[in-house]
């Protein structure tokens, strides 16, 4: 899907609107290749071409005041045939005009305006990047290069995110990229998690990752240590820190959640709990490649500190939230979750992780995190993959899976000793509905004590 196609549909829509109408439009599209592997063999393989065109229609009939606005969202699949899609759009506009009559006025609706979001933001951007992906038809032979049990998903192709508004905002972001998210699994069922991703498939980087994983697998061959429940000193690898920090997306960095009672950072704001001065969480669109615009075409600042040296700095605020609570919007997406998160670096060296841990648990990955008491920011989850028992700075053996249950205020607060100076990018490989974009950049973390419960 190209920018010209999207723009011509947008123009088609916008020119049909009268003075009491406005619209914002967003596009999510992809042309993807999927290869699913199990035991280093192909389980399923296919191609998906999909495009979702979503219109937010605004109407302020009977009044010129934006305080009497009604709004409605309507999305449909684009076929790629201009005539069919133009006709589909026309039908949806007619439907919206009819449907909106039955809706109540929305006092917090934000009528689209020409400049919303970051003060320095441009109202127009078009980014269309080409990648150097493996040719379709060559993927399977390139990926299956090990006699080990390799299981996972290769996904590649074009991803598009775009947004425009009748007030003149226009942003289009298209990228060709790949993500190979896989596990190397020992016959004893223990596994190492791996991921290679980018815009140009680098065979040697992939082979290096395979080599690293095969080496790690050797340690996992040993019998696992069964830990008793209790408190353990832990080192979280960057991928484990990323899993933990993803929890901030679930009602923690949202102004609406804060105002409406469910926010996990409420106690931080009230000053009854605190994070370590070593913990910073910044949204940084310069470091994480993800579009800065939201579905209304509003731009977030290039960098937005959420937590700086343990102190709450900002929450994400959508235009709607801003209007309702009388605060300033900052280009948040609906749901006000994380966008381009970067956890600040510390002073430890990742190469000294075992040494700095001394005796305790090295956590490579965490699994199935959920709030166990959201208002207290208490999270439960499991250990997964290559989690190791370390004694006197030497990795001894893998551990049996353990459940943990602890608060963010302990793990990133009172018990946090330091982060590593190296940060790793953890690209997302999620693909519910569409392949997701972006990732989370995080360092490793040394934590004095973590509650293991089962």
């Amino acid at each position: 899907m190209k920018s010209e196609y999207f723009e011509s549909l947008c123009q088609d829509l916008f020119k049909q609107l009268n003075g009491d109408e406005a619209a914002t439009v967003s596009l999510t599209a992809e042309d993807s290749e999927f290869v699913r592997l199990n035991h280093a063999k192909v389980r399923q393989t296919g191609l998906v071409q999909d495009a979702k065109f979503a219109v937010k229609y605004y109407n302020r009939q009977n009044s010129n005041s934006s305080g009497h606005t009604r709004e409605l969202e309507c999305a449909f699949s684009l076929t790629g045939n201009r005539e069919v899609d133009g006709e589909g759009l026309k039908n949806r506009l007619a439907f919206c005009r009819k449907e909106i009559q039955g809706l109540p006025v929305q006092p917090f609706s934000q009528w689209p305006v020409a400049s919303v979001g970051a003060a320095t933001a441009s109202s127009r951007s078009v980014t269309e990047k080409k990648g150097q992906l493996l040719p379709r038809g060559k993927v399977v032979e390139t990926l299956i290069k090990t006699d080990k049990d390799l299981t996972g998903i290769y996904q590649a192709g074009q991803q598009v995110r775009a947004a425009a508004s009748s007030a003149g905002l226009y942003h289009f972001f298209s990228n060709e990229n790949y993500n190979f998210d896989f596990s190397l699994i020992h016959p004893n069922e223990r596994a190492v998690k791996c991921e290679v991703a980018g815009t140009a498939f680098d065979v040697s980087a992939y082979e290096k990752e395979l080599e690293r994983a095969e080496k790690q697998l050797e340690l996992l061959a040993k019998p696992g240590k069964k830990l008793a429940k209790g408190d353990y000193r832990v080192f979280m690898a960057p991928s484990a820190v990323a899993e933990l920090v993803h929890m901030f997306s679930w009602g923690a960095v949202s102004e609406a959640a804060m105002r409406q009672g469910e926010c996990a950072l409420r106690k931080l704001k009230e000053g009854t709990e605190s994070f370590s001065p070593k913990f910073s969480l910044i949204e940084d669109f310069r470091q994480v490649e993800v579009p800065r615009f939201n579905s209304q075409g509003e731009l977030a600042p290039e960098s937005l500190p959420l937590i700086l040296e343990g102190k709450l700095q900002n929450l994400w605020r959508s235009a709607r939230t801003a209007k309702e609570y009388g605060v300033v919007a900052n280009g948040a997406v609906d749901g006000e979750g994380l966008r381009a998160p970067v956890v600040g670096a510390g002073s430890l060296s990742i190469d000294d992780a075992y040494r700095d841990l001394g005796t305790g648990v090295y956590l490579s990955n965490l699994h199935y995190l959920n709030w166990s008491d959201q208002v207290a920011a208490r999270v439960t989850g499991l250990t997964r993959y290559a989690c190791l028992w370390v004694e006197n700075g030497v990795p001894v053996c893998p551990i049996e899976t353990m459940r943990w249950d602890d608060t963010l205020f302990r793990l990133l607060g009172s018990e946090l000793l330091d982060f590593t100076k190296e940060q790793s990018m953890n690209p997302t490989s999620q693909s519910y509905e569409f392949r997701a974009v972006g990732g989370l950049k995080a360092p490793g973390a040394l934590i004095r004590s973590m509650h293991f419960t089962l």
Partner: protein
Amino acid sequence: MSNSPSFSSSFGAGNSGNHLSTGMVNKIKKPLERLSGVEWASLRAVNERSTQRVFRDENLETHSMGESAGVMAEVLVRGQIGYAATTDLSEAGLENLLKLAKARAEEVASRGVFRFDSQVRPKSVGKYSSSVEKSFSDISTSELSDLMIKITREIRQVSPKIIRAMSIAVTTDTDHTYVSTNGSQTEQSVRLVASDFSAIAQEGSVIQKRTSSGMMANSFQGGYERFVTADFWDRVRLVGENAVELLSAEDCPTGVMDLVLSPDQMMLQIHESIGHPLELDRILGDERNYAGSSFVKLHDFGTLQYGSEVMNVSFDPTVAGELASYAFDDCGNPAKKEMLIEKGKLLRGLGGLESQLRSKVAGVANQRACLWNRPPIDRMANLNLEPGTSSYSDIISSVENGVMMSSNRSWSIDDYRNKFQFGCEYAKKIENGKITKTLRNPNYRGITVPFWTGLKKVGDRSTFKVYGTPFCGKGEPNQMIAVGHASPLCLFSNIEVFGGVS
């Protein structure tokens, strides 16, 4: 032939009548008839129209409608199935789609996990439609908006301590048309309605949330009658009353004791600790890089004592109104009720025809795709714990010291489906056979087989309730699908329970 998406004509208030037409069958039949050089091929067209209405504190938050329309081709060549999916429904588009899918299958060549044949896509002919008494499309938008506003008003009126009231109604109308080279022709028209209303109450630093049976647990097949039920306004007010009641409730005690679970929490317990571990694709290793594996091994079928003798679990896609009822799975396999566990013994897995062939374990018709753009994989459908013989009062009166928990709010389990921890919105203390007081922040944890072995009593049909969730996620690429769960009230012995921090 016209290039227009012929089945995306009516785009209305949701939950509308039957959209299937012979037009779609004929449209996707033609390119299949012209295909050659393949062992088998199919086209599966899906049109899904959804509406979502979210109201908060007497105001409309979002009103959104969506339509996703597309086709997936599956082509079998030399034992491998390749797939390709598109929104381009033109004749040329469908012909190209079949070519792409064929090339995918050819690329696999000898590198597939298994050499399949067309027995994994049997010939099936038939139709299915959800039973709808009253369609949402018969209710005007303004009437529905007024109702949604009233729900939030009623909740807020319970107490000034309620700081947020929400009401959500979601409809999903899906029409599936499936045609294959070996003569399959199935048309299924599924109508889903999911609803949720919730209250958040606050007093000082204490904040408690209550929903009606857990987030979106009121998810059913059917129409408006499944949304506004006879007990509707009682449920609305109870949400508000319970939220306020929880503010001054004691925290759930910590200790090992009897645990009574309401059907709306049993739903989650069944889902996570029976459903997922019995999925044959997990046991065969397909999911090990994402959702995980299972403690259940292929040799456990027919031998493993999964739980106590009062445990009977069925896969039942025939329950009217339950969320995942259907006549055929997405491979054309006819669906029927099967017992997975009887008297606590594991008999059968949750695996479709591909998994059954790979594993040589008996399975069910559950190879399903969330939409036209994802390939079918093993999923739960309706997975139910069959009613037992104990009445509600039998169960409560038999508990000397325990807790009864309702409505899930927290869920987590390991990748082999052993160590779980679940939290609920609302609990009652049971002392000497009587319910005594309300408890807040209830949680419990356990390990799957010992937990089900501790199943002491199963409620009778009078305690049996049907729920569902639209949010079951697994698969690579990821798929979110709707599943139904029904259960009676259940009593478990010697369970580790505990409270919260807030």
